[in-house]
């Protein structure tokens, strides 16, 4: 499977300004969160990128994309009918090709030379199926994520066959249907905010969108759950972490994580130690 396209959703009510924030990347260069995400995608060998934006936001994002602006396609989500709807808006962009899907309010820090998107795209290409990146997450965070239930795929560490997907489950439901062998007690595999999906997802989302009409509330997870029933669909634990920049102090924590993983690590660490030492006094 050759993955050449990426969709980045930034139309959500609370997401619209987050990718426009400025950070210092791991090379010590100031740039927008959007640029950092675009570079993550580019490093995975993907050149066609589509942003799903709120109507009227295109100029701001084009501006924030800087040098990458010229390679971006834009699709507007005319009404806020849910995340699944936002993805479906890019259906014509995806066409019959598989695509990498990212959310605009997360940044990723890899623990190895290959970045997170690269790791995921390689797994998907090798396995020739849809793959969602997941991270073992404590049950107290379940109200924030889509969560999968499944089994280890052929006893390969970090790779799981997805059987079901539930959006923001209660721990009660998670315990009954989403327990994955091998995880610590009270931990579940929650989405990382990064997927490689086959065109079948667009088809499933299309059906959902036409059923729901203007009622909205179209989530991605039910389509992914249906995908798991239709074709082979895997989850992969990547060597890296996601950072939700929309959470309280999320941007700060993401910045620290990027800085500590990069060029200016010693400088930032020194500043932090000094800060702590002053606080201790």
């Amino acid at each position, binding site marked *: 499977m050759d993955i050449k396209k990426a969709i980045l959703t930034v139309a959500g009510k609370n997401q619209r300004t987050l990718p426009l924030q400025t950070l210092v990347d791991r090379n010590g260069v100031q740039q927008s969160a959007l640029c950092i995400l675009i570079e993550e995608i580019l490093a995975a060998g993907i050149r066609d990128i589509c942003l799903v934006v709120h109507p009227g936001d295109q100029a701001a994002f084009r501006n924030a994309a800087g040098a990458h602006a010229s390679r971006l396609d834009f699709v507007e989500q005319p009404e806020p009918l849910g995340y699944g709807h936002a993805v479906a808006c890019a259906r014509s962009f995806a066409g019959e090709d598989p695509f990498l899907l990212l959310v605009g309010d997360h940044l990723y820090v890899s623990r190895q030379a290959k970045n997170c998107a690269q790791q995921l795209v390689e797994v998907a290409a090798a396995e020739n199926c849809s793959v969602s990146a997941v991270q073992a997450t404590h*049950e*107290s965070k379940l*109200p924030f994520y889509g969560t999968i239930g499944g089994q280890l795929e052929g006893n390969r560490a970090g790779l799981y066959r997805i059987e079901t997907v539930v959006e923001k489950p*209660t*721990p*009660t439901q998670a*315990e*009954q249907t989403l*327990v994955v062998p091998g995880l610590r*007690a009270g931990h579940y595999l929650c989405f990382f905010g990064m997927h490689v999906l086959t065109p079948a997802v667009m088809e499933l989302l299309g059906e959902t969108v036409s059923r729901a009409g203007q009622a909205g509330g179209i989530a991605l997870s039910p389509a992914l759950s249906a995908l798991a029933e239709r074709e082979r669909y895997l989850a992969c634990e990547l060597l890296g972490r996601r950072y939700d920049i929309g959470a309280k102090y999320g941007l700060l924590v993401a910045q620290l994580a990027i800085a500590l993983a990069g060029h200016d690590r010693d400088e930032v660490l020194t500043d932090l130690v000094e800060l702590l030492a002053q606080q201790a006094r």
Partner: protein
Amino acid sequence: MPSRFVSLITATDPAVRNQSLDALAQPASLAELLAECRELDAFRRRSENLYERVRALFFLYALHRFHLPSKLSQAAGPSPLRHRLIPFAGFEHLLQRRFEEAIDAFLAAQNADGPGDGVSSALAAAYQQLGFQTLADQVRRSVRAVPGNQWMFRMGHPADHPLRLRPELLRLAEDGTFPILRERTPVRMDLSHSGWSDIFFLGMDFPEGARVLNISIDLGVHGRDREPRPPVETYLRVIDEPVLRLTSVDLGATADIRHLAEVFDFARDYLGLLKAAVIAAGIVPPGIEGSGQNLADLLARVVGPGRGLELISNVNNIPKGSRLAVSTNLLASLVSVCMRATGQAKSLEGPLEESERRLVLARALLGEWLGGSGGGWQDSGGVWPGMKLICGGLAGRGDAEFGISRGRLMPTHQILGSNDASAQTRRELQESLVLVHGGMAQNVGPILEMVTEKYLLRSAAEWRGRQEAIRILDDVIAALRAGDVRRIGALTTQNFFAPLQTIIPWASNHFTETLIRRVRAEFADNFWGFWMLGGMSGGGMGFIFAPEHKAHAQARLQAIMSQAKRELESALPFAMEPVVYDFAINERGTWADLLHGPDALLPQTYYALHVPRWLRADPQTLPAPRRAELDKFGAACRVRPELSGMMQILFDRLLPRIKTGGDQPQSLAELLAQNGFDRVQHEQIRADLKNGRIGLAQNRLPANADIRDVNDPDVVDATGPLAEDLRAAGRAALARGELAVVTLAAGVGSRWTQGAGVVKALHPFCKLGGAHRTFIETHLAKSRRVGRLAGNPLPHLVTTSYLTHTAIEEFLQRQHNHDYPGPLLLSPGRAIGLRLIPMERDLRFLWEEMPQQLLDEQQQKVRNSLHAALIHWARAAGEGGDYTDNVPPQCLHPVGHWFEVPNLLRNGVLASLLAGRPQLRHLMVHNIDTLGADPDPGMFGLHLAQESGLTFEVITRRLEDHGGGLARVNGQVRLVEGLAMPREEDEFTLRFYNSNTCWIDVDKLLATFGLTRDDLANQVKVAAAVRTVAARVPTYITIKEVKKRWGHGQEDVFPVAQFEKLWVDMTALPEITTRFVVVPRRRGQQLKDQAQLDGWLRDGSAAHVESLCEWQ
């Protein structure tokens, strides 16, 4: 050679596995039984299988309780002087629930001193309790391990709380109020009576036999409610305060909970069930208990900052004890409404899905465990719709129980379709069945333990009974399919009279059988059958009639039940007036609706409770949502017909009338005056109590008292056959008319019915000679037999008190004295006390200083919380004040059985008896519950030979024989009450326990009082003599439990202080010679507790008593 008993446990062949232990143990010798006990004990220690361990424990219990005692007495000869003592250390371990340590201590004593009756009794108790504890632990583990329940035990910080309230509940309506989520849940009835197969322990070992036919029903009280409706209603809504507001409208209780610790404080108020639901539903998960975290933070996480939740329960005044699992279904309904509100069920409204119903069941089980109670696994049946067969299931891979027990904790529910029971059959069933509450409310806990024990022992008759009950269930299912309601009636009747009573004779009682007899007499062929609901009869019951007679039967049953209750209410514990229900099968199961705006109203009783408080508050301080709710409620009262009476109710609540007490049959003051209440003495006792001169600690002998066991020559051994010359002397004296029997019957059996205040003498406690017999009838039957043997009927005296006199007098009149051939006289009490609110000091002494049986972990928590609440009550109500907040008879108390013998002198009964029978020289005085005591000629001869003033009968001590004993106190041989023991451990050095049967030489007793027979006519002299001796006998302060009944079958138990003087202290008076005789246990044992009855029946004691009786 492998142990035969162990093979019974490990066998895979059901024919071997299901053999009865008794059949194997009976022919075995003492040595063989002791060897088997050693094998079983080693086996249960090494086995890793739960049920092997438990069954071995119950085998050991049964061998030590029922088989070894008789083998020991046959093998070792009857000498009680070689009686082995029970080590106190083991007893202490037992109280602290350190069962393994207790067993080790008792076994060490057995190894050191040899086997003995006392040590066997201790081992029996320890093995039995360890067996039940092991089972309870497993149920608890299984409840926690049910998927969906586990996370709640891991969550310990509000920041980790994973639940969020559904957004629909947070949307304010235009009128400024939040929507209300209402859950309505039917209750359940069990069409087959399951043979108690819904006990978890049975279902987990014998899932094939665990089957019940369970029907969800709507209910109404006939004549009160317009139509049946789901009796359980629960409500949840958001409030604008960071508190949990819990309200039980039936119990009139409400509380704003602001701290996490209060949520886990179950007995603090009447809201324990609501708290358990909040916890079991995961809103306040059990894992957060004791975390020190803040409830407001938790609510902020789940509901939103500054917000809280209100939870309301309503069972529409359905009386307690209905045997329809009202409280379990209420808990399930509360759990369901909380789960829906937090997204743990898919739909906010309508029915639940099957997986959700199962989770509600698991959570309700968790809630029951948290609240320290426990129902059967079918009890949440109301959550499911219509009729269903609930079955146990074999544990499979993936179940938490796999490899531990054969069955799963959670049963499966198969809903019956129209092929299994057609719509017409369902209609016919409704048209034939009259559902009632007989008014009795009893604790079924001991029955459930008996069932478990008998099942594990596979006692032959009971095991056959269980098979028969299983067959009857199949027949009921077939009759349902065939639409034959009459056949169902025949089957449920057969079930009640055969297998159920074979398994548990105590499932029936005199009241129930009286009702069945009268209904059958009146309705003949149109009465199709009796149907027992739940744990035991007397409360919720069903009577099946030909449909055309149902309306008449409903009216008549009300009258028949009320009449029977009036006749028996002194003898049996009734909690309320009997009621007849209207019912309908509920085909929906539990169901929720979201109420918005003007429709979002709570039950009117909620407003009756809350609105007066809101109206009394300063309007300026009322928060806006409450003002909005008042507006809405006011508007609804003007237009809704069902709220038309609200204004009057609110008016009465705001301006309550003063209670005149005119509805009481007799006021407290009148009762006190009639019964010779001594106000001066009462005030003296109160002053002494308040000043600390008397109290529980002061009951005790000085700490330096030298208390040791008696020497062998201090007692006479009468456990074996008595010499013929003694028997002859006794017979001759009986023939001469020298003896009268005195039965002490002034008491109300506090322990017998946990303070329900029934006349114990009149309690029909057991079927003997083919009918339910009262204690008094049994004692008369023994006197009748001995009188006939001697050729001269014995006078039989019954001492009474203000509590028992009228009831006993009327009862004996109705029964024509049971045709007793001799004089039968009542000796009315001449003293009465007024109960006092206890001192905190005494309550703390009782609960914190005295050795107490520790309960299972969760139950102990509940008990500690209750004790704290009761201490608070005593302080608030005024320590040492008169206890008057109850019906008058419950405020008074008899002043101890010391007075009962002097009363014979004071009330003229003895004088009149002596006048007619000057040959009378001796009395045999015994307790109402010493059923084996009879005027045996040999024992009488022995008393005569002693030439003593008093001859007390004692028995060798078993573990359950608590409260003093025969001792040498500073060198003097005397009986010491448990209350007076300065150190608990001293009791365990005493071999002999008082049976309280006492032979009295009348003239010597009179001499002790400074009287002669002629003085008995002189009331002044007699009164002075009694007062003088009374002053020399100690006064004990005791704490008794009294029930206060209220509402619809609700009962509270309060500890109250009272004083008493005890007859055994006569043994300390030097001027009367006292002798002590050791008698067989069957003669001297007392029945204090209903839980003893089954063992008493099984160990041959009942048969022994029957052999002493002549009923006609």
